[in-house]
């Protein structure tokens, strides 16, 4: 029924729960998995839960973001590999995760989005409730919300 399932992640427990369910669903449907992460732009200020918490040069900050993004995407990559599913990872620089998810779904021709709710702030906070709500409101493809 579904051929390409988009699983957004920010590494939060809520998004990891969505990863487990999304991969299980993809395995049942023999669908491809597209994982996406919205990485914040590398500025000298480091934010956590939308609050400035530290300073790093943009290069250092970029390395931190890349490491963290890769770690979160790798979780989905390993699960997809274990389930023997086709997999694609997408990392987009954006402070607007809802737009990133919707744009990626369109560009990668996904037919389902599986995402969590009740996330946290900062890089981990790309899945706060409002993000899920925005995706639900604007998505033209089905969205499965995992609680």
């Amino acid at each position, binding site marked *: 029924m579904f051929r390409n399932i988009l699983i957004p992640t920010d590494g939060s427990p809520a998004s990891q729960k969505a990863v487990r369910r999304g991969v299980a669903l993809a395995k049942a449907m023999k669908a491809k998995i597209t994982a996406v992460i919205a990485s*914040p*732009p590398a*500025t000298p200020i480091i934010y956590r839960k939308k609050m400035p918490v530290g300073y790093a040069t*943009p*290069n*250092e900050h970029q390395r931190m973001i890349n490491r963290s993004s890769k770690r979160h995407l790798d979780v989905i990559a390993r699960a997809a590999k274990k389930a023997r599913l086709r997999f694609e990872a997408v990392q987009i620089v*954006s*402070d607007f995760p809802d737009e990133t998810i919707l744009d990626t779904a369109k560009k990668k021709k996904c037919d389902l989005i599986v995402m969590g709710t009740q996330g946290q702030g900062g890089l981990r906070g790309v899945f706060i409730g409002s993000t899920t709500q925005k995706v639900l409101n604007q998505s033209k493809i089905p969205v499965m919300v995992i609680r």
Partner: protein
Amino acid sequence: MELLQWLTLAVFAVTIVAIVINKLDATVAALLGVAVMVWMGTMTEVEAAQLVDWNVMAILVGIWVIAGYFGRTGIPSWLSVQSLKVSGGRPGLLIVVLSMLTGILSMFIDNVVCILMMAPVALPLARALKIPATPLVLMIGFSANFMGTALLLGDLPPQMLHSVAGAEFFDFIWSQGRPSSFPILIVTFVLTLAFMYFYGFRSIGKASAAGAAKIKARIPDPLFATITVGMFLLTVLAMAFREVLDVKLGFIAITGAIILVLILELLGDKLKAPSFEHIVQELDWRAVFFYIALFALVGGLEKTHILDMMANAMKPLFATNYVLGATLLYWVTIPIVGLVEHDAYILTFLYMIRDLGTSGVPTWPLWWVVLWAGTLGSNLTVAGAPALYVALRIAEKEEKRKVSLREFLSWSLAFCLVSSAICYVFALLIWILPYSN
């Protein structure tokens, strides 16, 4: 306060709110505000026209026409490539040099025009050295906004000071026996750029002398460029010696523009120059009408003696503790102009300070304080300065993504706070303390 004064103040406040919330076009809102004031009887339509400083409008239009031709000479591109050579292909240094170049150009050219000139030529350099477009274009925007106030020609606020206080070209370099806008702002600018280099640019992008060497720029028509730069310099020179020539600055600017147009039109197809019609179409007429309406609006407050009353209310603050008063004025101005369009605020305060002067409060330090804080504070958000809005749009278009407020503030807050703090120290030592007794 009489009823008419209350009504005038209410119309002014509603107009400013309309401009700030941006639901209605700022120019339309300002013109509507003036029309309502005329219908209410605050002023007649003839008085409204007389309240506008047409000399300032002539300076704006004249310099914009010359700058319009200057932008088409290819000199900005050529200068940018020279910046690349000076930086040796080091990205952080290139950003600083390009910011410095923008700052220098913006002393003579309108801020928005300056960004529109510099950003398109800076972006190919950024691509070659893998510099993120957003911080680079924002730095160009901050620099254009910052240095526009250094001399008389680059922005409306210094021209307002010319209108209200009679500040001449050289007053922006040396005034009342002490250094004024140009030396103070240039030192502040250099120190701020040094800070920004260490703050965010010392390890940005990838140094590439080979990539830098590939980019070349040439001036398409050296004769056109020579004529335009020559006329530009002559006009600036004539403006600098306005008192000797004994004519208005606006007259000089318009004369310079007309002579340039005449020469270029007479040479016609022999030059690769844009047509006069094209240059006129490119002028920001919306901004011109906004400024016209702004003078009439603030003039309405002045005519009904509202500014007089506000000046009287503020007088005890400056009379009892001049340093505290000037300091408060400076630091209260910074966040306000960061959030609202700064020209209206600056013009209102320039008039108010003039009224303060009639009761013996020294005006020059306060005029400079408002001018500098009003300009430096406007770098805080895009709401404070139209130039930053233009810069932000260019960055977003280049990076094909939206720039969030927190990303913007990561750069603007540092630039704005550091430049404001440095400038405040100079303002305090050179202007406020010597006048405090």
